[in-house]
């Protein structure tokens, strides 16, 4: 019984959010689009001129571009795999009866509250450092050569750091979903003599699919623009081994101060993000019946 009156009211209520977001998106985007067609370097102002598609050509033919594209996907995919699988296992464990469950849960969610810059600094200096880090200490105590994490496995190191930060989020959502699982349903299946493995795959997994979708959606949004961790640890290297698209854009705009190419990169990143978004939204639409 939504009358025209309520509809109008609803529209009014939505408009501040919609208008603000629209402005927040369009104004800078329009400016970025304009800059992307300009020769515009912050370091030589006054020399701006029309560049046509040169900035785009330049950004897309950068040898680092394809590497960055792959790295972005690996980073997002890697973190999603670790957090969703790890989160599911952890949630299953935390759902079991045990002593001190509340405290364990506090321990598990703690990383979520840590600033990305702090976590990257701590991981880099106090854990992954191959001479003075704690990992190196353990390796040496075991008589193994310490791994040079950031030098030899830069992308993996970043994936691990980011996964550590996001694991609690995934665990919490999956745990909440798990706790809402109808226990009668499980008991019924138990009566039918279904093994615990088949119970898991036929009842628990489908139930968790929805929660996993949410985890993937929200995390992807944040993971696509990872930057602080790279800034603090590897600076995108060695070579381009840990350069992702946001970092490449960053390098153009704030290390080379080339606003033109940086803006072109920004637009390319927006287009890529939208492709991912469409893909994600399809999946969400299917699983979340909005």
């Amino acid at each position, binding site marked *: 019984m939504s009358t025209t009156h309520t*509809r109008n*009211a*609803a529209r009014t*209520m*939505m408009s501040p*959010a*919609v208008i*603000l*977001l629209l402005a*927040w*998106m369009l*104004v*800078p*985007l329009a*400016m970025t689009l304009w*800059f992307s067609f300009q020769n515009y370097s912050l370091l030589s102002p006054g020399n701006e001129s029309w560049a046509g598609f040169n900035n785009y050509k330049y950004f897309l033919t950068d040898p680092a571009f394809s590497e960055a594209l792959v790295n972005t996907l690996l980073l997002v995919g890697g973190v999603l795999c670790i957090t969703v699988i790890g989160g599911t296992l*952890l949630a299953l*464990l935390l759902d*079991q*009866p*045990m*002593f001190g*469950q509340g405290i364990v849960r506090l*321990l*598990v*969610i*703690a990383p*979520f*509250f840590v*600033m*990305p810059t702090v*976590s990257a*600094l*701590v991981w880099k200096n*106090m*854990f992954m450092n191959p001479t003075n880090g*704690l990992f190196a200490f353990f390796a040496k105590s075991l008589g193994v050569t310490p791994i040079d994490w950031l030098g030899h496995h830069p992308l993996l190191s970043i994936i691990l750091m980011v996964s*550590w930060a996001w694991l609690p989020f995934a665990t919490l*959502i999956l745990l*909440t979903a798990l706790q809402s699982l109808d*226990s009668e349903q499980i008991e019924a299946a138990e009566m039918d003599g279904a093994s615990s493995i088949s119970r898991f795959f036929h009842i628990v997994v489908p139930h968790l699919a*929805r929660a996993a*979708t*949410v*985890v993937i959606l929200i995390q992807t949004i944040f993971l696509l*623009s990872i*930057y602080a961790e790279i800034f603090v640890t590897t600076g995108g290297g060695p070579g381009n081994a840990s350069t992702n698209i*946001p970092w490449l854009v960053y390098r153009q705009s704030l290390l080379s101060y080339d*606003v033109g190419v*940086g803006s072109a*990169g*920004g*637009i390319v*990143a*927006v287009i890529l993000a939208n492709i991912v*978004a469409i893909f994600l*939204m399809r999946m969400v*639409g299917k699983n*979340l019946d*909005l």
Partner: protein
Amino acid sequence: MARAVTLNRRLFNTGLAWTLGLLIFFPILWTILTSFKTEAEAIALQPALFDFEWTLANYQEVNSRSNYPRFFMNSVIIALGSTLLGLLIAVPAAWAMAFVPSKRTRGILMWMLSTKMLPPVGVLVPIYLLFRDSGLLDSRIGLVFVLMMVNLPIIVWMLFTYFREIPGEILEAARMDGASMKSEILYVLTPMALPGIASTMLLNVILAWNEAFWTLVLTTTKAAPLTQFIASYSSPEGLFYAKLSAASTMAIAPVLILGWFSQKQLVRGLTFGAVK
């Protein structure tokens, strides 16, 4: 969950869960411990877990070097301000989407979320120029606004999914009683929605507290929050692990404590519609 579980099983679960929990928490614990060591001990070849000379020197040093209270207050103001402003705008929007859905609702929601996928570096220069022209550089108001915008899609989404779980019949009944829309929101909906709003608020405070791009780029001194504070300890000359740990502890402690105390409230609304 009243199923019988053997004691052995329970002990096994407990052992495993505690081990994993401590492993996950360990980096934070280690940071806190290191902050009480001397610089030489912090980098010792044989690191000590608890058995070292405890000292507060690092905290004293950090405090004398930086104006921690100001960074802290800025973080509080920016995190709370952006959250409250965001709620003010998001609650009506989410309410409208949840209770007066139209064909476009889903599209609008998805579009809102997709705005969050834009990499901030791509629009850095435009935003910087706009802020400069409007005198908002290094102002708390400017930062409150930016962080509110950055997190608005998440707030709307989270509230929407929560509101949607509220049965529509209750509203219908209230309407039958002749309640106006205002009193409907105030007396019927709000009490039911409070847990969701509280949870959204907590999540947003955490996200805003930890935001480390705009807060670093758009502030210098007057509005600089704790992310900026940390940046000044990131790799100074000489031995610095202990001082870095002290600064890190000071930067994360407030939100860690907040998160721990409000864990229940946070979790209750943190489902994003994942639970039917």
